[in-house]
């Protein structure tokens, strides 16, 4: 396993760095420093194979990105940060999942396939996110209500699905 650790470090660096840079460019150096620290902590946790750090890292980056919209941070930085955080979260789990294998051929093949799939997903997500940021729609209150209902309906369906899976 050679590729994944590099991509993981790179993604973490981008996730924290983009957010920190966004806040720094918005003249909020303290918050920027906080996210630099968050990135460093995440990197340390990766080194010590502490798995919960992946979810905490992604959560931190996402909350930072959502708050960034209130602080007026450029949305490009936020989108890049969330996307890179997602990739880092995924790879952190993937490396933990594969690290005990002794069969190098299988590991290499699985790693390659995973990175390709992740690259595609992240690429599409970034592209669609960029498109969404450039397109501006005005929604009526009713449409927003419908969207919220859809969100709740989707959440309940998901919980139902998860219950079925656990059975």
């Amino acid at each position: 396993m050679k590729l994944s650790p590099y991509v993981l470090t790179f993604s973490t660096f981008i996730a924290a760095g983009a957010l920190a840079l966004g806040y720094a460019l918005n003249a909020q150096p303290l918050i920027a420093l906080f996210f630099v620290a968050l990135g460093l902590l995440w990197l340390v946790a990766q080194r010590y194979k502490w798995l919960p750090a992946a979810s905490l890292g992604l959560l931190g980056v996402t909350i930072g990105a959502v708050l960034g919209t209130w602080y007026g941070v450029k949305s490009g930085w936020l989108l890049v940060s969330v996307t890179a955080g997602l990739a880092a979260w995924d790879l952190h789990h993937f490396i933990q999942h594969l690290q005990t294998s002794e069969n190098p051929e299988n590991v290499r093949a699985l790693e390659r396939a995973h990175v390709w799939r992740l690259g595609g997903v992240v690429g599409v997500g970034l592209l669609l996110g960029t498109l969404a940021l450039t397109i501006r729609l005005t929604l009526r209150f009713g449409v927003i209500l419908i969207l919220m209902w859809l969100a709740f309906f989707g959440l309940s369906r998901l919980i139902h699905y998860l219950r079925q899976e656990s059975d």
Partner: protein
Amino acid sequence: MRRLLFLSLLLYGVLLAGLTSLRGTVVALAIPLAVYLLAAFLYSPEKPRLVISRTLSATTVNQDAPAVVTLTVTNQGAALEEVLIEDTLPSGLTITEGEPWLQTALPADATATFSYTVTGKRGHYPFRYLHVTVNERLGLFRRRGWLEVPGTLMVFPEPLKLEHLDIRPLRTRGYAGPIPSRQAGSGTDFFGVREYQMGDPLRWVNWRASARHQHTLFTNEFEMERIADVGLILDARQHNNIVVDHDSLFEHAIEATAGLAETFLNDGDRVGLLVYGRGLEITYPGYGKVQRERILRALANARTGDSLVFESLDYLPVRFFPAKSQIVLISPLREDDLPVLTRLRARGYQILVVSPDPVAFEAQNRAQDTATDFALRIIRVERELMLRRLRRVGIQVVDWQVDQPFDKVMRLSLVRPMAQTRIVRIER
């Protein structure tokens, strides 16, 4: 599952934050998360159709000898992006090479093989289930299941090396063997002299005896050598077993029993085994390699038991052993075993007791102080007296300290086969 839940909650959290705050930018931030979730959902695996077979390099191996377990997996369903197949290892086996699992991508109709090497102590190890986990590449959607792929590995005890043993049961069987049968016939040892009969070889004529009689010739007779029935009794009563630092006296007794069985079977004798303790585990008498395997199997499965019924040797099924045959009891012995052994001896059985010394075994790791020394001395004297009483009734006793070579101890203890034809009468 936790990852899926976490990502879903995060996605919905961001979406709700965006919708409630009416900020399109926040909704846009949720898009990469949604794409990730959607991609995982689209590629979520179908129910796998796997055919798995298990082969073992040997179904029976000796203690600590390696056995290779090979599993062949064939995917008869749709392609699987990532499958993890984990074998459930029976407790007691140790992996020395390889890993008991395979993580790979498995296209439709593809076959993958993985193998690992295990070693283990004496015992019976049933393999049963494989745990199969199938997931898409992002690892969010999984299917788990168990597949039953049975297999059994039997680890035989290591028989202690032993040379030929001189035993002299009162009754032997009809086939030629190494045991003097107390009957005249073809053999090598001088047995007696009888009157010459037509057909006797001239070199068998006893010229000295013949010289004393004018008209009669005498012929030497030799003792026939035959095989015998040997019944091995392994004492598996829990209260007779001593464990010191994971070393069990019972294990030594098992190895000794295996060695004795092998030696008797190599001599051509008919050997049976009774494991007495947890119940009555009987291996009926037989000959040769097949019987050797049967006995080793029985010994591999032997466990100590604390059944109240079999607490004493009173329930020893005597009819299991042919009359006047050789009985070999492998037991640390207890005081209340003496009457039973005496009764057996009185019935005409030739009895050999191989007794792993529990006192010496337990004394190995005892702290040396005056009280312990004194206690040990008392117990040693008690044991010596018990063994003497056994010898006095015509029972051969081998007092074996398990740290000494079994072969040497047996050779020294049985240096002269006892001509014990004396039958003990029970005093009532």
